[in-house]
């Protein structure tokens, strides 16, 4: 087989593999949507969760998940799904609009769903792909510098290299700074208790508001140590909150 024939063959194999991998996910997604339309929200949400855990996360998946959760009356879960969708696609205007609507329905202040300012920077970086922009500028600056060194650049090649390097560092600084944001989780249960130890027999020290987003300070088994918007720290059961920085790890409690 000649070298020229290998390229199309490899591309075809990759496409076939990709379509085979995407097919079941699409089918399951449509099945879940049908369940939502028929009113079987719990099963639909279970399938959405299964897809998310399988790596088929997207703003669309979480958007539909949020609609099903809202229809069930689970507004905290719905807000979490929308926030997760916003994490994946910060430019989705419909998601941003529904986050605002649900926030108001849950009577939450804006600060109560955005406790980490650095997370905003992270969404900005993801929305405008500042990481890739930074990489492109870095490559350009190195190339310009190299060309100037080889005397193949037009006049001002070194200036271009310097300017692109500065821009690249600035662009990279945003996602790098955002990576220092504390992970957060959204409360999905009304009146979720905040207890003083990671134990079912611990004393309750307060309650969390449904939909409230709290920074996650520590994890221990099924418990997360969080800080509420009033500054109170305590443990909350994982069934009562959903993390915003990762896909749902366990089967959602439906």
């Amino acid at each position, binding site marked *: 087989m000649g070298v020229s024939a290998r390229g199309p063959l490899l591309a075809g194999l990759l496409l076939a593999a990709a379509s085979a991998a995407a097919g079941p996910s699409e089918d399951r997604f449509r099945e879940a949507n049908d369940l939502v339309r028929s009113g079987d929200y719990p099963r639909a949400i279970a399938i959405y969760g299964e897809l998310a855990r399988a790596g088929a996360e997207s703003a669309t998946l979480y958007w539909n998940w949020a609609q099903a959760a809202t229809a069930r*009356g689970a*507004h905290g879960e719905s807000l979490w799904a929308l926030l997760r969708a916003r994490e994946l696609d910060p430019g989705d205007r419909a998601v941003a609009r529904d986050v605002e609507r649900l926030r108001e329905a849950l009577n939450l202040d804006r600060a109560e769903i955005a406790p980490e300012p650095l997370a905003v920077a992270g969404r900005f970086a993801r929305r405008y792909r500042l990481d890739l922009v930074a990489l492109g500028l870095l490559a350009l600056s190195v190339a310009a510098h190299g060309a100037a060194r080889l005397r193949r650049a037009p006049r001002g090649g070194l200036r271009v290299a310097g300017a692109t390097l500065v821009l690249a560092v600035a662009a990279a600084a945003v996602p790098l700074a955002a990576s220092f944001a504390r992970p957060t989780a959204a409360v999905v249960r009304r009146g979720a*208790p905040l207890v003083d130890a990671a134990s079912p027999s611990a004393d309750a020290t307060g309650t969390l508001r449904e939909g409230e987003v709290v920074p996650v300070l520590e994890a221990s088994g099924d418990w997360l140590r969080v800080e509420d918007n009033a500054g109170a720290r305590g443990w909350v059961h994982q069934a009562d909150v959903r993390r915003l920085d990762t896909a749902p790890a366990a089967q959602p409690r439906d």
Partner: protein
Amino acid sequence: MRRLRGLIAGALLLAASPGGAGGPGETQSPQDRNAQFTLRSEVDAHKIGVQDPLQLTITVEGSNAPDEIPLPPLVNLEVTAGPFQSSQISIVNGRMSQSRTLSYVLQPRAVGKAEIGAVQAGGQSTAPIAVDVVAGAIRPKEPQRQDPFGRDPLGDPFEDMFGARRRGRSETLRVQMEAQPSRSRLHVGEPLVLTYWLYTQASVADLQFKEAPQYAGFWVEDLEREKVSPSGEAASLEGQSYRRFPILRKLLFPTKAGTLTIPASVFRVGIARTSFFDAGGTIERPTKPVTITVDPLPDAPGFSGAVGHFKATASLDRDTVPLGEAATLRFRVEGTGNLKWVDRAPELLVSGAKVFPPQSKSDLRTTESGVSGSRSWEFVVVPETSGAIEIKPMAFSYFDAGAGKIVSSETAPLTLKVAGGTAAAGLPQAPGLSAAARATGALPLRSELDRHAGWAPGPRLLASLVGLALVLHAGLIGLGMRGGGSYGSAHAASSRSVRAALRELERVSREPMTKEQAAALVEKALDEAMGGIADADDSERAGAIRALLDDVRFVRYAPQLGDYSEKLKDLAARAAEAVRRWA
């Protein structure tokens, strides 16, 4: 100092003391044979000066005493202080009785007759008390005290002289306190009863906490006092015989596993006087620390931490509901244990219906065996389709300490019939539905599962690549510095240097100067704008500048054989062009 909660607020008096309670104005006590309490009113004097205070004491003894005792009508008297109220449990000749006392301080208004009317309470009444009021003050003045009732009116008259020494008798009295747990080993969430007992061989007049008990690691509930004979019960402690009385009972639930210690509580016990020459006194008696071993609870999915014996039931408020209307499903947990800890209901999933978050209700009471009663959660279920909706059994898990395992109590399955109507007609909208859903009645689902945005470098990779790029730049700079000096010469020339060099070159053409001055100026301008040229640099730029400098130096050091002005102008023009091109 804290007083004991409940009924132990005042004195425990032994037999002989009531006899001395009368004063000069003691009134009659009408005794009704059928009554379960007695009522007395007393004054501390029947004849006083108009400037003297008069103390009125109303005492009710026995069970079923009325809660409120009104102030009797007063003639020529007014209340200046009170009422001061105290509750007492008295042990008289080994028998316990309860009493309550209200005291008032009265002041006469004028000389003449005064009267305290009949006290009426609970169907009984006392006789009126007449008091003569004369001019001036006829009662001996007592030393000033902060609390007019702080001193026992029957106090020892020799106390001031011998009081401290005479109190020594109390310290040798056999009075003990004991904190007795109902058990010493249990699981987290299991109840135990902690009873504080008073063991005494003497007359106890008062009992108070000096140091309130601490129950770190326990959830505490108050229990009613154990009902025992008024005379207490015979008991033996450390080889001595006592009468013992339950003072206080607490229901404790350990909240964590391990060895928990309830530290000692110190009681201050007032000893009643037994004779005219006995001052009584106050002694302190601590309980011993109590150590409890608490075993942890097993862990299991869905286990909420309930410990005890419970039964879960579920019911619907109606069997049939029209489509568009709601039914209420009540999930109820009933039993005994740590039911107060259970604050969440199991998830209710009903296919074909919306279920709204539940409201919780409790009907709990504290008993020796734990918190008994029921806790229920009411879910509003709104069917979305007609027909029969099956509600699956709901499970409630709890730890059965007797069996030593987690037990699950399941409710029976329920069926809700949904009659008629068209789906969605009249259905209540959830408050959080999106604008699209509210407008169209349908959920705004997205149909295509888009893929999450492609590859993105993680922060570590991004930081590494930035670092790598900086290293590459540094390497290139290093190479440049070492190889051709291009970073330190022409490339380093600032625009200001270039402009200055061009101005100097213009001066060569414009101003009269010697050829040495002009050549030096051209050479200086080239050096400022272009920097040094490395020997190894064989570029066009380097060659041109070297040739230019050679010409300039030739003119500078050549003998003055003619006019070099044109030559210098030409050199200045060439230098300016080189500067513009390469600097």
